[in-house]
């Protein structure tokens, strides 16, 4: 933004601007403005350091470019004298100049050179000072008198009105920043002294304060001791007189700053403070109004309202204020019109520079003022930018990342869900297969199961028949009848127990995930198969572990696997002589797994068959489907275990089922039959 100015330094004299001037200490070098130098927009406060840095750079370039100035001297510049009442760095002046600078437009071949002068009121003043200053201006601008004079604020207008005829006769004057009531008191002004008046009325600010702090009972107004302070004080007294019936108005006028601060610190509740600032306190200490307000606001125990936009940021809540920048802009517009050849009397000027509500967002928070009470058109300062405002790209990037991440998560969840469904389907299928396999097992056990059930049933029937005959034969044989009934009851329980076991095995049940004891499962396998072993004349040797082996899973499925293995083992020994048909089930306990071994003394598994043993449809039995072992493997693996087969060192095959134990093993020892053998030979 600054580059056009910097670039122009090579072909025309450059007077920099406020800060470049100040830094290069070439305070009186005129600023040259060309139409192609775009009006600067106001600098946001947050970008101030950057602005300063760029200005500093520009200043250095300006200083080094100074020797090139004579080469550009051929360009005709139009001087405009800008006269300020106060010092250069008064914030109001800085803001005003910014507006002025922005608004001035000039033809390309006649750039405007803004030449600044400062009366430095109220530090300097009086007839002698003014005289010397007038002489200085006369000498300085003798060769090139200004085309327009801009008088900012009251003192400079007064000076211009007093000395214009003498110094720069008939040069039009544009005033700015002067209250309309003061202008009215100066009327009539010459026709070529024009400008847009300012309304410094404080009642809108007070109204604002009363609206924001509805419980306000007391308004404290602080004014200073310098001449302009006195003028303002009297204006305020007049204006505030109308408020007397609504609120108690108290003036702290021309007091030493120390006293002012003490009073402000002890205001108590229900008070608000208003101050136009002061140039001087009762002890003669000099301030800028903004500085004085800053000091006061720091001590005040009540919210403070101010007069000028330059007070924003010093600690005041805000106020309804005309903007100095707007004042400068209005003046700049008029200057541009005049330079373009307009007659001063013919210009249509705005009636007044409008006021705008300015608030310090931090102070709103500090005093607990409801943000919603701020008018929509108010200028809110120091509101921290929202995350989006402050880090737009980062926020967008983050949102994009979140969205992508979210999408990914949803995708993964969907995938997981799909997989879960697939797993459920697989589990259902596995349960179905397991059930089918159990049915097959039951089919194989039909003979022994029928035997097991019919045995007690036969006993019951015979006992009942015997009892009937005994009753028919007469005579008192109660004891015999009683023992018959006891036997009937016992056999009934026996039969129903077999049926219960069978039901457990055959029922199509939901796959369970429950803790159970492996030893118990092995023991039950022995009970279920005892009868079958007897039928096949096989010595079935069950050796359950002596301690509890906790597992989690479906105990029916694990039993099913073991039954399957034992039936296979019994098949393997069927061709041996009766006294050699042995099948042993034992359990080994490891650190994390328990292993059930099913060992037979049959011919063993051919080594070529070993790798295929657990594959579906692999069978060595003429009538076998080849599903039993593959289902067994599926079930064992579903329990996180493993199944394997090998040939025992001596003779026969060993099947191992490894199952993971539950972590927190409560090794509660349970004594069961240490060595339970269901031997068919009794």
């Amino acid at each position, binding site marked *: 933004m600054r580059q056009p100015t910097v670039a122009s330094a090579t072909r025309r004299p450059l007077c920099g601007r406020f800060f470049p001037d100040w830094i290069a200490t070439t305070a009186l070098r005129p600023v040259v403005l060309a139409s192609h130098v775009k009006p600067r927009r106001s600098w946001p406060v947050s970008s101030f350091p950057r602005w300063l840095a760029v200005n500093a750079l520009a200043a250095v370039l300006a200083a080094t470019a100074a020797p090139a100035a004579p080469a550009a001297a051929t360009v005709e510049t139009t001087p405009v004298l800008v006269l300020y009442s106060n010092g250069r760095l008064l914030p109001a002046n800085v803001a005003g100049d910014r507006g002025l600078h922005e608004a001035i437009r000039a033809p390309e071949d006649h750039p405007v050179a803004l030449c600044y002068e400062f009366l430095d009121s109220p530090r300097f003043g009086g007839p002698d000072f003014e005289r010397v200053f007038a002489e200085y201006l006369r000498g300085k601008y003798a060769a090139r008198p200004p085309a327009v004079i801009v008088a900012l604020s009251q003192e400079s207008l007064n000076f211009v009105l007093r000395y214009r005829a003498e110094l720069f006769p008939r040069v039009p004057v544009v005033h700015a920043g002067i209250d309309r009531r003061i202008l009215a008191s100066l009327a009539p002004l010459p026709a070529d002294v024009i400008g847009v008046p300012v309304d410094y009325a404080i009642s809108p600010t007070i109204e604002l304060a009363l609206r924001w702090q509805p419980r306000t009972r007391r308004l404290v107004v602080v004014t200073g001791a310098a001449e302009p302070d006195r003028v303002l004080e009297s204006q305020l007294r007049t204006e505030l007189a109308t408020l007397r019936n609504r609120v108690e108005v108290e003036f702290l006028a021309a007091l030493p700053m120390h006293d002012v601060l003490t009073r402000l610190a002890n205001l108590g509740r229900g008070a608000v403070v208003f101050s136009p600032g002061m140039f001087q306190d009762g002890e003669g200490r000099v301030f800028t109004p903004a500085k004085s307000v800053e000091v006061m606001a720091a001590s005040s125990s009540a919210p403070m309202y101010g007069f000028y936009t330059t007070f924003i940021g010093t600690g005041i809540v805000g106020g309804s204020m005309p903007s100095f920048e707007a004042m400068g802009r209005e003046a700049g517009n008029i200057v541009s019109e005049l330079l373009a050849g307009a007659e001063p009397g013919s210009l249509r000027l705005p009636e007044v520079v409008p006021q705008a509500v300015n608030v310090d967002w931090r102070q709103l928070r500090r005093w607990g003022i409801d943000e919603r009470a701020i008018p929509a058109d108010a200028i809110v300062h120091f509101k921290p930018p929202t995350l989006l405002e402050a880090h737009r790209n980062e926020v967008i990037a983050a949102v994009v990342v979140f969205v992508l991440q979210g999408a990914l998560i949803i995708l993964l969840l969907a995938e997981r869900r799909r997989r879960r469904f697939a797993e459920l389907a697989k589990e259902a299928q596995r349960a179905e297969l397991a059930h089918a396999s159990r049915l097959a097992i039951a089919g194989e056990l*039909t*003979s*022994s199961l*029928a*035997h*097991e*059930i*019919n*045995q*007690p*049933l*036969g*006993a*019951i*029937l*015979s*006992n009942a*028949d*015997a009892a009937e*005959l*005994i009753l028919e*034969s007469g005579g008192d044989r109660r004891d*015999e009848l009683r023992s*018959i009934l006891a*036997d009937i009851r*016992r*056999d009934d329980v*026996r039969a129903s127990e077999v049926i219960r076991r069978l039901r457990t095995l055959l029922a199509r049940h939901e796959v369970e995930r429950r803790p159970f004891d492996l030893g118990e499962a092995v023991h039950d396998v022995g009970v279920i198969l005892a009868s079958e072993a*007897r*039928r096949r004349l096989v010595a079935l040797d069950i050796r359950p572990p002596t301690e509890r082996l906790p597992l989690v899973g479906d105990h029916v499925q694990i039993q099913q696997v073991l039954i399957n293995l034992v039936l296979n083992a019994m098949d393997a020994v069927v061709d041996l002589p009766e006294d050699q048909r042995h099948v042993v089930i034992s359990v080994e306990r490891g650190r994390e797994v328990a292993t059930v071994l099913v060992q037979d003394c049959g011919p063993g598994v051919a080594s070529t068959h070993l790798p295929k043993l657990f594959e579906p449809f692999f069978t060595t039995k003429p009538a076998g489907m080849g599903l039993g072992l593959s289902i067994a493997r599926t079930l064992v693996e579903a329990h996180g275990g493993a199944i394997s087969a090998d040939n025992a060192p001596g003779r026969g095959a060993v099947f191992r089922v490894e199952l993971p134990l539950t972590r927190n093993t409560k090794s509660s020892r349970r004594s069961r039959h240490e060595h339970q053998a269901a031997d*068919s*030979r*009794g």
Partner: protein
Amino acid sequence: MSTRPLIHVVDDDESLRTALLRLLGAAGYEARGYASTGEFLLDPPPDRPGCVLLDLRLPGPSGLDLQQALARRGLPLPVVFLTGHADVASSVRAMKAGAVDFLTKPVEREVLFEAVERALERDARQREARGEAAVLRERFASLTPREREVFEGITAGKLNKQIAGELGMAERTVKLHRAQLMSKLGATSAAELGRLAERLRQLTPSEPAH
């Protein structure tokens, strides 16, 4: 030799065994129980009419084995099999081996008693047959070798002259032997001798009859 039959119940299931003994006892039979075939064979039954109620599926030597063992020992008691689950193979084997009946548990009282009665009847018949055969064998044993040769000749339907020629003796001597052996065997005609010979042939093998 008591005439009252004794029924042997062999079943490893104590409960069922007790129940059967009770039932048979209540019906007026004398019955004795065994937990296994081994127990039964260790304690040989007295030579009394009777029968065996045998569980088909017994630990140790099976019911079928027992049946054969009894026959070998010349104690061919009729056997009634009881089974909890009748499969075709074992029932066929049992019936072939001469089982009287093959009952499925739980067994109806009437069915059981009928089977027992049938078995006892058969036992009685067999005993009678065994008695007759014993007399016959005794008589036959009293024959001299010559007389036996002549007997074989007669039962083969040969004439005295042919027998005399084959044995190298006089026809008169053959007639003498013939009169002697007919008297020893208690037969009055050649036809009767033929029937005796037939009975003997039937009794010679050690298997139980039929």
